[in-house]
């Protein structure tokens, strides 16, 4: 046996093993609580900031009601987008048009929805 080393009996080693596992669980559970709390604080702050920035933006949007409904020349209608970034939607439409070998303005996309 190497000097300075500890020899444990079965009971002691079982107890140490259980204690160690418990410490890991407690440590990570407490960390989980901290992360959840920090996440909630961040979320509420972001929500407040969004609400503030949305309020002034609403006024100019209301000033131009009809023009936004007009379609671009050659366009085949507008498309409803659900849970999809407009950039991604544009890319999807371009890829489909390319694969079909048809101009984009001859195709009609009704809606694009992310499948979850």
């Amino acid at each position, binding site marked *: 046996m190497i000097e300075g080393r500890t*020899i*444990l009996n079965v009971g002691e080693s079982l107890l*140490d*093993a259980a204690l160690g596992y418990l410490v*890991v*669980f407690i440590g*990570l*559970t407490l960390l989980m609580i901290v992360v*959840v709390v920090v996440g909630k604080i*961040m979320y509420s702050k972001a929500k407040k900031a969004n609400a503030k920035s949305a309020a002034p933006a609403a006024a100019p949007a209301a000033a131009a009601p009809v023009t936004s409904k007009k379609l671009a020349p050659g366009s085949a209608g507008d498309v409803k987008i659900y849970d999809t970034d407009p950039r991604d939607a544009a890319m999807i439409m371009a890829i489909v048009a390319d694969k079909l070998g048809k101009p984009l303005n001859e195709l009609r996309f009704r809606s694009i929805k992310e499948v979850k």
Partner: protein
Amino acid sequence: MLESLSKLVTESGFAGFFSNPDGWRNLVMIAIACVLLYLGIKKQYEPLLMVGIAVGCLLANVSSVFMTADGSLPDALYHQSLWDAFLDETSPYYHSYGHIMSHGGLIDILYIGVKAGLYPCMIFIGIGAMTDFGPLISNPKSLLLGAAAQFGVFFAFFGANLLGFDAQQSASIGIIGGADGPTAILTTTKLAPELLGPIAVAAYSYMALIPMIQPPLMKALTTEKERSVKMEQLREVSKTEKILFPIVVTIFIVLLLPSTAPLIGCLMFGNLLKETGVTERLSDVAQNALMNIVTLFLGISVGATMVGSRFLTLDTIKIVVLGLIAFSFSTIGGLLVGKLMYKLTGGKVNPLIGSAGVSAVPMAARVSQREGQKANPSNFLLMHAMGPNVAGVIGSAIAAGFLISMFGG
């Protein structure tokens, strides 16, 4: 003429295999080094470290056969006797790095970085800089899976005690179950340095074998229905949250368990470099140059501890078996808590992500993804499994911190 030839033959390394009492052991270790090289190069088992470990083992054993009449090894690259004196409290060279520097070979000097705990911590800076904690922040429950998957650490610790290892050795063997090479190396260096070679080889070999070890356990412990569960998309994590995370974890975990400071501190420092966005150069160095240089030194130094006289023992076989048990039970622990979450959430959590709680980033998460997709081809579990995967890194660091504080003297 004949005298010169005779001198040349007797002084050659080949003759050393027979004249040196441990010569045959060195010969066996050279063969083992070649097998490790084959595994690293041909089978690509953790090649970045396995090749270094194999070369370290090869160099240490090839250079250790040139023993002089007084029993010293003047040409050896690594001297086990110097490190024995370094650890012997009765020796005048106890904890004398100066003695190592003046009498050691190349690998002895490189090994100082292992002994001082420098390399594992620097690797943790690199790992931190490469890790995205976003999936963990968006789903903090992953931390429970990371904790559950440390079961094998403590199960193997208990098993090693039963097999006659002392507490320090058992703790070092148990930490193999954390599936985290640097953590295993740091813990073993602090608690049972005499076992560093076999523990490092076992840890890295089993990490490479995760795609073979985990799937049978995943299939045995989960049903087809559970494996095919599709999980909800994770929420987006803001940059501020990502910056705050390493700071909060460092303060919280280190205050909770101070012995985790080297590992958690370095891991989170590396991550902070990545997330701040203002230290891109440092982040780049940590992820690439630093990581590669330290991996090089670490592999060779750890491999050099595999000298025949120390490695070829019954204990090595026990360590290899216990390492496999540790890995398997860590996987089982993660899967069982994953199943519990599946039940508690009414089937919203796929239990396969639990097995990713053993660190081994990102291989364990990839295995979860692959098995999930086998059950349901439209299943994408990778990002969900990355949460428990990175939580496992924190979990194994806490487990190591606990064992070091309990048995570190």
